[in-house]
């Protein structure tokens, strides 16, 4: 063990309470910021899963002659961003509804007339699944004379995305605030340790120790505080994640979407960020102290 690491560990032992408070502060900051990150990652996954299923339904006017259907299908298929246009006749739609309704399908038997319209189900190519593109395509289809109404079920998703983006911004701001608070705490801890050891620092200088030699244990202390805070914060988040994910209904998290914990690169980035917070807190304190 190098003398600097030894001195850093000695410092942590001698100032246990102060260090514990700092590590807990960092851990709490990491927990909150990582919880936001976890929420954003999973919400993003969920929205992407929803986006992958975007379909535009074009309901035709009742008077549309059957002879025009092939021509109309060709027109829609030639539109930019369309992967497939599938015609669903009103008879097929009614049969489909009956199948879907199972036992209640007898309710539909008494209908004198089929109320459902002929429909085109339009699937989009993956690269064109942006909101702007979906809206433009829907507007183009709506302009066709045979089309009565266009609907895309995930229209609400656009509104949700906007709210999500607002949340993301709030998350960034909150994250920045918590990081600043953590830096402030580390800086104060190191400052207090420095004041409690000012005589020792002075003696070190008198016997020929360079500033870098004096600073090194404090930097190591800050990095240890940061790493421990990061690990504790992420461990707490993992426990909360296990609890929450075990309580999520099965049908919500299976199939097209799975709730997941922070991916390894994010995990590593959080630990490094936490260590950086520890280092920066030290840097600010030492810069001020040694200048004096």
């Amino acid at each position, binding site marked *: 063990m190098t003398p600097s690491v030894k001195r850093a560990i000695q410092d942590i032992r*001698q100032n246990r309470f102060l260090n514990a408070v700092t590590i807990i502060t960092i851990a709490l900051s990491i927990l909150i910021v990582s919880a936001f990150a976890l929420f954003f990652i999973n919400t993003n996954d969920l929205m992407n899963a929803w986006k992958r299923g975007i379909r535009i339904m074009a309901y035709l006017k009742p008077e549309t002659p059957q002879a025009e259907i092939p021509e109309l299908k060709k027109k829609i298929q030639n539109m930019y961003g369309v992967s497939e246009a599938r015609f669903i006749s009103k008879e097929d739609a009614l049969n489909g509804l009956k199948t879907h309704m199972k036992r209640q399908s007898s309710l539909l038997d008494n209908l004198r007339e089929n109320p459902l319209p002929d429909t085109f189900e339009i699937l989009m190519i993956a690269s064109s699944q942006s909101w702007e593109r979906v809206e433009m395509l829907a507007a183009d289809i709506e302009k066709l004379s045979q089309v009565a109404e266009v609907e895309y079920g995930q229209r609400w998703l656009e509104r949700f995305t906007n709210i999500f983006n607002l949340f993301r911004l709030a998350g960034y701001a909150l994250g920045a605030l918590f990081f600043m608070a953590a830096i402030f705490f580390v800086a104060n801890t190191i400052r207090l340790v420095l004041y409690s050891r000012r005589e020792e620092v002075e*003696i070190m*200088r*008198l*016997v*020929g*120790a360079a*500033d870098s030699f004096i600073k090194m244990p404090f930097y190591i202390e800050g990095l240890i505080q940061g790493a421990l805070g990061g690990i504790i914060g992420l461990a707490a988040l993992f426990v909360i994640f296990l609890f929450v994910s075990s309580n999520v209904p099965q049908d919500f998290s299976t199939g097209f979407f799975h709730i997941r914990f922070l991916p390894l690169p994010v995990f590593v980035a959080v630990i490094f960020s936490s260590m950086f917070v520890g280092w920066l807190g030290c840097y600010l304190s030492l810069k001020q102290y040694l200048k004096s």
Partner: protein
Amino acid sequence: MIDSEDKSAIIRLFHVYRNYGVKHALIDITLDIFNNEFLFISGPSGAGKTTLLKLLYLAEPVSDGQILVDGLNLSRIPRKNIPFLRRKFGIVFQDYKLILTKTVYENVALVLEAAGEKRRLIHKKVKSVLRTVGMEQRLNSLPPSLSGGEQQRVAIARAVIGDPNIILADEPTGSLDVDAADLVMDLLKKFHTRGATVVIATHDKALIHKTGGRVVHLNEGRLQVTPEI
């Protein structure tokens, strides 16, 4: 002892002044300290002895004048190189200035650790120097558990472990009883015979007479050269 001294100056002070506001702590000090010399700076309390020593290891800056240490002009040393200057000195303080939370071994080893020496060498040298000052049995003790004389011997061990050319001692026996003071002076003389230049600031005339060596007298910040004893 004097005959064997190399008479080239290792420390030179030219018209040095040190002022604290309007108060003059040192006035027009011009002095050569020679290689392997055993020099006393005597004078009453407040005469400027400690200030003079502090100027040598740049704990304080000169207000005017020049100081050369081993050919280096102290006014031209950049801040980042001050630690390297201080490693030329072994400094013994009246209040020992030991780190109370570190063991005897750690206090002495600190100098070599700061100089970036290898652990094996540090271990060997610390043990050797503690043996020389008679403290090898107390290397795991903390300073508060030692007597004043023992603490001063540890401070001397710390001062000499880096093989400095110059040992500066500020009232090294000031708070010691006669026996402990004699032991400390014997140690300083031992390192002097090994080649170090020793500069001792003291107000103790008896100690100067007992030990012998060149004496310069400071009074109210002015230097009065006294014949060698």
